[in-house]
């Protein structure tokens, strides 16, 4: 025990088992870096990929272990209130594990084709995933900020990894500048919350709000400013309009597997932080933030769908569609109820698998000059199974029944109806009908027959080569999308059990 400023410092007791997911990812990342640096040329090319895959699988298994652990002994706070171990954290742990495994499988062939350094890619992927898990389980704003930064800094580099392409550099630069900008806003929000509540702990902030209730708050404007700044910072991360400007450029310029990881794990981590902060800690002042999120949701939906319609590059189109999906998730978040939160979690999980699958297919049909839509013409003719999988992913994102996307949209809109925010529910329904057009346009393109001819050269477009790893990942994501569409109950219950709790 060390006396610090008159207080006695006791090292917190740490539940190492509860930290297993983070430790596995961190350990694997360090292992990859050390081994590939020491062995240099002699390090076999498959080494880092296999380690990353094993780490992802290990996190998945440990996530299940923790899930049953929580069911038996209840949620608890670990590392003296810095992180919480609850169903919510475990759900995001599993989601990140899936995203890591999918990204590694898809990136395998991609890295080889583009002559990129695989050890660095895999190490950064694992570190970014660690940050995402920390973000989802943080119960202190500073820990959350550290998670956010580990995730973001890893992604900045991953976006730039294809350093021979100017687009990738430009995307990374834009992502970096706007990401750092939004982090600064988020941090200033933390400072405001700290200044008005006297702690960065989320449980402390909640108790403070509960205690004060409607009585005189010392500096209400400061806390409100804090809310607003935290919201701006997170809205940047999840790409909600009007803080979405980076998303299309970054998704388009980054390597396709990285874009998939951004649209799934990074977006999910942003929403995890948003739910943890607003639903759990600031739930008391729901009337203050809920209308703001509602307006944000509608604007995000409209801009996302309208902009997606006019795109000609598939990656860019999926980026705008991903913005629109952030709008649907916000509809669930703004409800501020357990149902709304569960709906948002369900949406995040099913959307992540669909978007990972979509980017997996895109990375197969990679061209030096981007992914204009006509490159995908006749895809179903040449590679029926891949064409079918892409169709399933797109139908899922459009919200067609019998896919997971339908249930997800249904749940978030139901949450809005239950809360009597009719205008929001109606807006979401109308926009989802209009939004179906953007996906149908691509589906028509890939099933159109005489598309096998390149327009400029008249040369036939070769059928994309499907490496087994990518094929496996795509089929897995497709199976998930369909199975959840037919029997959604297990995922609905999983999401319900994962509604976050906050422990002091």
């Amino acid at each position, binding site marked *: 025990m060390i006396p610090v*400023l008159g207080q006695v410092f006791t090292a917190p007791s740490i539940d190492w088992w509860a930290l297993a997911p983070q430790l596995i990812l961190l350990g694997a990342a360090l292992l990859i870096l050390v081994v590939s640096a020491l062995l240099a040329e002699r390090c076999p090319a498959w080494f880092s990929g296999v380690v990353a895959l094993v780490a992802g699988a290990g996190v998945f298994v440990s996530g299940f272990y923790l899930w049953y652990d929580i069911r038996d002994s209840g949620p608890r706070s670990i590392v003296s209130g810095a992180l919480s171990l609850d169903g919510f954290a475990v759900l995001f742990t599993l989601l990140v594990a899936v995203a890591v495994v999918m990204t590694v499988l898809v990136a395998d062939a991609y890295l080889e084709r583009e002559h990129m350094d695989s050890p660095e890619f895999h190490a950064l992927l694992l570190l970014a995933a660690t940050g995402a898990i920390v973000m989802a389980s943080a119960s202190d704003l500073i820990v959350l*900020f550290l998670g956010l930064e580990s995730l973001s800094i890893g992604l900045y580099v991953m976006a*730039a990894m294809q350093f021979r392409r100017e687009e990738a550099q*430009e995307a990374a630069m834009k992502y970096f500048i706007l990401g*750092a*900008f939004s982090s*600064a806003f988020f941090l200033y929000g933390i400072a405001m919350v*700290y200044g008005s509540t006297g702690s960065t702990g989320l449980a402390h902030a909640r108790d403070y709000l509960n205690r004060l209730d409607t009585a005189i708050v010392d500096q209400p404007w400061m806390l409100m400013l804090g809310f607003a700044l935290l919201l701006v910072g997170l809205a940047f991360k999840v790409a909600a309009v009007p803080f979405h400007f980076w998303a299309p450029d970054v998704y*388009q310029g980054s390597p396709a597997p990285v874009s998939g990881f951004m649209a799934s794990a990074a977006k999910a981590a942003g929403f995890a932080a948003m739910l943890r902060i607003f639903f759990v800690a600031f739930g008391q002042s729901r009337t203050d933030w809920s209308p703001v999120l509602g307006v944000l949701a509608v604007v995000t939906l409209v801009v996302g769908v309208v902009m997606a319609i006019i795109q000609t*590059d598939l990656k860019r189109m999926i980026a705008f569609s991903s913005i629109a999906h952030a709008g649907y998730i916000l509809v669930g978040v703004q409800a501020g109820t357990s149902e709304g939160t569960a709906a948002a979690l369900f949406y995040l999980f099913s959307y992540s698998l669909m978007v990972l699958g979509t980017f997996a297919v895109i990375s197969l049909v990679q061209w030096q000059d981007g992914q204009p839509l006509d490159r995908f013409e006749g895809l179903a003719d040449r590679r029926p199974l891949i064409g079918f999988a892409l169709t399933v992913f797109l139908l899922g994102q459009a919200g067609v029944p019998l896919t997971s996307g339908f249930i997800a949209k249904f749940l978030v809109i139901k949450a809005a109806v239950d809360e009597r925010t009719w205008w929001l529910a109606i807006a979401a329904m109308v926009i989802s009908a209009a939004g179906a057009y953007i996906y149908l346009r691509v589906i028509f393109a890939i099933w159109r027959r005489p598309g096998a001819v390149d327009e400029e050269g008249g040369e036939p477009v070769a059928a994309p080569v499907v490496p087994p790893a990518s094929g496996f990942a795509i089929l897995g994501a497709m199976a998930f999308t369909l199975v959840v569409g037919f029997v959604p109950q297990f995922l609905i219950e999983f999401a319900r059990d994962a509604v976050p709790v906050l422990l002091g």
Partner: protein
Amino acid sequence: MDVTTGWYLVLGALLFIIGGVGLLIRRNPLVMLMCVELMLNGVNLTFVAFSRRLGDIAGQTVVFFVLVVAAAEVVVGLGLIVSIMRRRPDVTADDLKLLKG
């Protein structure tokens, strides 16, 4: 005249705003990076001032975390700028316009 913590809060806010406005209007990537640093340090000053006002040490420890994060961010940012500058020596943010639509 008494200099209270309120002055430091205002100074922190001013630094943050100068950094934010600078990031939006300056076109040199290096200067933009410095503006981000200015914003982060404005927040640091705010944390220290609050820490002083509340008589709570936590705010000052936060600053160390932020310093480390800022250093990591600069490393990545400089790396990106160098790799872009190597290709196009006199690049400004306005030249980064390949991606559009």
